[in-house]
């Protein structure tokens, strides 16, 4: 089927641009439909000896705490990658583990809004009154991902993860401009949350399953957790400092 073929080539291009080792593809998730996520399993299997801390992190992270099926997880993954794409500066959202970060967050306090006031009555309110939805973040993400998929089918007669990057962008732009209808919340709100969560996953401490190998920090010139800058704070020159995570304390 032409559809299927296009799908495959898109994924292959995607994996290529994601910089995933070709060897990983053979035994990896290509046929299974997962983009890159099983890759580290295979990588550790083909790596001659020992695992680096980052491999271990990735391996431990390969399951789902919130998502149930690969399709939804892929939609999320591709959307985050469009928000924070791989480029010549370094990895994008997928390589950084952002989708796993979001999966973890949606399964916990963040997803259930447990530290927020969630009692009714609910009203739409003015924009200056902030978030007024009865939905939790988990509800909004779940629905938002369904809507991305729905919108892809409506506009391009294809699943979101099978679209060309420009087509994904077109849909994400429509969400950001609130041109898609959602129930109990707005597409613009979902998009803002998705964008924030993507950046949070790219730049939080690696213990949260994103910012893989601290590469988000490295790209940005942020040294992470450092005990002290007292010896260098008065220096004129920019200080390039190898980042440290909380786990390396």
């Amino acid at each position, binding site marked *: 089927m032409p559809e299927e073929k296009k799908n495959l080539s898109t994924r292959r291009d995607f994996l290529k641009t994601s910089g995933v080792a070709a060897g990983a593809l053979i035994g990896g998730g290509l046929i299974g439909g997962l983009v890159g996520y099983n890759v580290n399993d295979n990588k550790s299997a083909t790596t001659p000896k020992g695992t680096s801390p980052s491999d271990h992190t990735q391996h431990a992270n390969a399951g789902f705490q919130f998502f149930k099926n690969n399709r939804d997880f892929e939609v999320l993954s591709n959307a985050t990658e469009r928000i924070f794409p791989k480029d010549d500066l370094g990895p994008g959202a997928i390589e950084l583990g952002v989708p796993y970060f979001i999966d973890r967050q949606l399964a916990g306090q963040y997803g259930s809004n447990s530290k927020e006031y969630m009692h009714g009555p609910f009203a739409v*309110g003015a924009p200056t009154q902030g978030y007024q939805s009865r939905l939790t973040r988990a509800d909004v993400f779940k629905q938002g991902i369904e809507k991305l998929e729905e919108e892809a089918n409506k506009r391009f007669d294809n699943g979101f993860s099978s679209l060309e990057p420009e087509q994904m962008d077109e849909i994400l732009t429509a969400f950001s401009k609130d041109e898609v209808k959602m129930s109990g919340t707005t597409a613009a709100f979902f998009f803002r949350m998705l964008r924030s969560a993507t950046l949070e996953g790219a730049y939080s401490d690696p213990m949260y399953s994103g910012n893989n190998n601290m590469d988000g920090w490295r790209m940005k010139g942020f040294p992470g957790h450092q005990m002290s800058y007292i010896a260098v704070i008065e220096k004129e020159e920019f200080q390039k400092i190898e980042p440290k995570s909380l786990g390396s304390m």
Partner: protein
Amino acid sequence: MATTLPKVDVVVVGLGWTGGIIAAECAKAGLKVLGLERGEARNTEDYLKVHDEYRYAVRYELMQNLSKETITIRNHRKMPALPMRQLSSFLLGEGLGGSGTHWNGHSWRFLPYDFQIKTMTDEKYGPNKLSKDYLLQDWGVTYDELEPYFYKYEQTLGISGEDTNPFWGKRAQPFPTPPMKKTPILKKFESATKKMGYNPFMLPSANLSEPYTNPDGAAINSCQYCGFCERFGCEYGAKSSPEITVIPTAEKTNNFEMRFRSNVVEVIKNGNKVSGVKYLDTLSGEEFIQEAEVVVLSSYVMNNAKLLMVSNIGEQYNPDTGRGTLGKNYCYQILPGATGYFDEQMNTFMGAGALGMTIDDFNGDNFDHSDLNFIHGGSISITQTGSRPIETNPIPRDTPTWGAEFKKNSIHNFTRTLGIGTQGASMPHKENFLSLDSTYKDAYGLPLLQMTYNFTEQDRALHKYITEVTQNIMKEMGAKTVEGKNPITDYDIVGYQTTHNTGGTIMGASPDNSVVNTYLQHWDAENLFVVGAGNFPHNGGYNPTGTVGALAYKSAEGIIKYSKSGGSLV
């Protein structure tokens, strides 16, 4: 049925800076003090792994749990008020130390002008400089009267600074410790503002420049410039906080007890006195009545006002009639500023919460307002607080906010962007006030506090004028692109602005226009004291904590005096 507990001399509700100061002073004077805190105990050991932007700065680990209690908000009286469901515009603290744990440490004395703002403005510009809708009033104390209390507060915290600002009130003593290090970023601001004829000086800081032992024997360490102050606790014990200063001082006396997870729901009034407070043990759900000779409300602005309202103490302010004082003069802070994009990379990720330089040339009445349509102004500062990557993604206005261009720009600018900010004064307006909400309730069945607030013409004019000043400074600093802050329109609770909320339980010289007297003693209940930034009749052009601290020391003196002789202190 609530269990009644044996009477104490003083019960303090909330253990941040104000509760801690009052507990320490009263316990030192031999009074038996009980501190009730609805949050948990915490100390330096709990901040060992605090360099975690996501948990502390983004997900607000140290802040109030809104599922239990929040406020409702509306911009004006015709708008239905809705709950603030998520923290954003300001961050309410909770737990031992309160906001004094997660503050940046900017430590100011309000200007002499602030305390006599009505008199001095009228004298210079006539009585109609602002319309009658602005409820400007003097504070009932002068700067000179407060000077010794300011110093006492600064000594307790060990504030680092230099007395070179020509505009602030006269200091009887130098700062307890010298200023912090002057970094290359600060020097850019210094040389630009000097060139423009202004008077830059090092910002007074509670991140200490050197190890210090305060007069009570509490030790504070030297700041490491690690870049994790605001929204974090300090793992070095180098940022003055209640839990490393006034709390151990109170504990040392053996006259001080703390009860955590104890949420006060009512102040019990009998005639012209209060007999104690009712509180809930939030673990067991049990109710207690704690009797006390003196009750001190020392929680945040919001909860101090709410406790008075739900306890029916004082008369609720009515904007139609102007009657009533409780809830009146709620103010915020106006934040003009500019962002500058530079070519060269700078160490923006290093810093400390109160590492900065300031000019006061546009604060208070330090410049002539004859031809301006606003009064007051603000302190203009550059601060190097330490940029962190999740929340610092600087992009010029025409850049997309996501995708390839966004990524490139936000990464490039992370170490090439500086900001100049202003703590702009906020004048009281008859339509800005606090009251009780009639629809929404907290976890204990009490109504939520309702905030009715919008920016005023005064605010918009001040913001516009000072934003231009900050843009000019940024240009002089050598930025290749300068962007001023967007003009302010309506107050929006989305997006962090500042946790400098003031008013609602204001102080003054007369019960006709204030809730408490100049010892923060309630006009309607002589053994009830209400302490905090809620006492400010307007908000000045600085961060509020220094002035809050001075008022707390004055109030503590009053409480000790009251415990001996009773009656009104004024």
